[in-house]
């Protein structure tokens, strides 16, 4: 297990480097001169040149990339905002908890609503429960989250007046953003749970359990669910990525000062240092979540654990793979 964790941690390094280099390289080609924007239209040529030197904008691509990478890796410093001249990292870290709260609540919603929906659909295969459940799921993945958000605001805030339409405050301020952002996640989760459940239900060990007279409920809880939910964990990881990215518009609509809104603000004020850093920051957050999901997966699934254990276990593993 320790070896697996170590290997997985080492695999993170090229991903982190790759993501940073890729986004930096893309953003390197941004047209326009940040310095002219920072100093305004009245700046003299000397002032502009001085500023360019100070920011290192006159360096070559490789020097700038090296500095940027070095600052992130050794100092966890994402640079400065062009417009406000403030360090981006402090902003990002201050805003991160709000974004993470939304993401975590969304994942919670996804799991507690999506999983039962998928199980019901699988157990009632081709019946009405299945049809209705999958139809809802199909709708869920087909609606853009920002539109769902606006419709929820229209109904629950404007028409009914039950929930605040935007802003920060108690938990009631998080309800609408989270439902809107979790919608596609719930649907994906339901579809994935259903197909994984259908696969498990047809396995031999379920037939065996049935043939020895086990009750259907017990078969479901003891044998079917634990096996069916394993692949679903991966969906949760992907869902995290979707929700993190989704917070960009959701935070903007509900005026929640998180990383996503910061990113949109950067786009609107043409402060591309903010855009670059926020994208990298969110991508790194996503990579860390995926790492966590993989580790949890390995911890829960005995087959992965066995791959890194002794020889006898490994034989056992190959046997199971053939027969299960």
């Amino acid at each position, binding site marked *: 297990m320790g070896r697996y964790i170590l290997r997985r941690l080492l695999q993170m390094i*090229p991903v982190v480097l790759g993501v940073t280099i*890729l986004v930096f390289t893309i953003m390197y080609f941004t047209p326009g001169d940040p310095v002219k924007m920072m100093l305004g239209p009245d700046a003299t040529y000397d002032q502009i040149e001085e500023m360019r030197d100070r920011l290192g904008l006159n360096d070559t691509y490789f020097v700038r990339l090296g500095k940027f990478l070095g600052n992130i890796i050794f100092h966890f410093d994402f640079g400065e905002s062009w417009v406000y001249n403030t360090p981006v990292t402090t902003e990002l870290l201050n805003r991160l908890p709000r974004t993470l709260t939304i993401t975590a609540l969304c994942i919670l919603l996804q799991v507690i609503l999506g999983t039962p929906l998928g199980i019901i659909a699988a157990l009632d295969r081709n019946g009405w429960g299945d049809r209705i459940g999958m139809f809802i799921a*199909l709708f869920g993945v087909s609606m853009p989250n920002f*539109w769902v958000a606006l419709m929820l605001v229209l109904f629950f805030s404007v028409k009914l007046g039950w929930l605040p339409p935007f802003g920060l405050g108690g938990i009631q301020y998080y309800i609408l953003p989270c439902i809107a952002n979790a919608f596609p996640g719930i649907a994906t989760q339901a579809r994935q749970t259903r197909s994984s459940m259908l696969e498990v239900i047809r396995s031999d060990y379920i037939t065996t359990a049935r043939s020895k007279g086990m009750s259907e409920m017990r078969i479901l809880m003891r044998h079917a669910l634990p096996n069916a939910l394993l692949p679903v964990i991966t969906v949760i990881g992907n869902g995290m990525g979707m929700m993190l990215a989704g917070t960009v*518009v959701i935070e903007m609509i509900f005026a929640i000062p998180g990383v996503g809104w910061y990113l949109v603000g950067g786009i609107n004020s043409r402060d591309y240092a903010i855009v670059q850093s926020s994208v990298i920051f969110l991508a790194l957050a996503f990579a860390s979540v995926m790492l966590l999901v993989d580790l949890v997966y390995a911890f829960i699934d005995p087959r992965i654990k066995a791959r890194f254990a002794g020889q006898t276990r490994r034989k056992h593993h190959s046997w199971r793979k053939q027969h299960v």
Partner: protein
Amino acid sequence: MFSVASTEGKIPRVKKQSEFVAVARRLSKNSSAVIGFVVAVLLVLMAIFAPLIAPYPYDKQDLLHSRAAPSAEHIFGTDELGRDIFSRIVYGSRFSLSIGFLAVLFSSGIGMLLGATAGYFGGVVDDLIMRLIDVIQSIPHILLAIAISVVLGPGFFNTLLALGFGMITMACRLTRAAVLGVRHQEYLEAATSINASTARIIFRHVLPNSFSPLLVSASMSIGNVIMAAAMLSFIGLGVQPPLPEWGSMIAGGRSLIRSCPWMVTFPGIFIMLAVLSLNMFGDGLRDALDPKLKK
């Protein structure tokens, strides 16, 4: 003599149709796929014949009737400048649908080439391409699209490129896996033995035989691209006003949601219709192309 001629005429035609006809037949039995297909075709027709369908030009302002609620004259109402929302939606379908189709076409094309190269040659080439794909894939698609779209600036083709770039990964992975699957088949050995060039082997033999998973994933991605394109315009990138893109129409109506909710509701319904119909069709296509998968 007649019989000879007729068999000659028949054999190739039957051979060519068999697979396609079988898939089409299975597809036609799936009612949700048929509904999806019909709605998608209707939307495409709406985009093509937009000038005939739309009652007003998309940019015609009528300030006397601004912010009008839906009525017989303006069935979806008008926006803050008095422009007819239905007409704008009809014209907007041109942007949304074509960005969806073209971005997927672009990413599938590049992804197929990369994936086929990686799978066919293996070794260092494979490693290089796949590590690059790994990196692209570890950035959430919409964030990558935002970054590229910031660099390229607004506009139809730039949006198309920004959205297509991140999706190269899926086509590449699928093609690579499929190529690895057919790589050691006898017909490739036969092709090599008659001295066919590598390019010919890849284009004539490898790709056609690994096409169906790609087709399914492409048909499912079109809907996602349409949603992502709408989101880009919603946050102020992508296709810009005054062009009637569905996402930017929703953004425009956002501040007026209390007084004129129709400005937000109707464009969203059309995004949903387009994505839903394509997803229904894609689901059906997956089942039809691989009957074994349907459980």
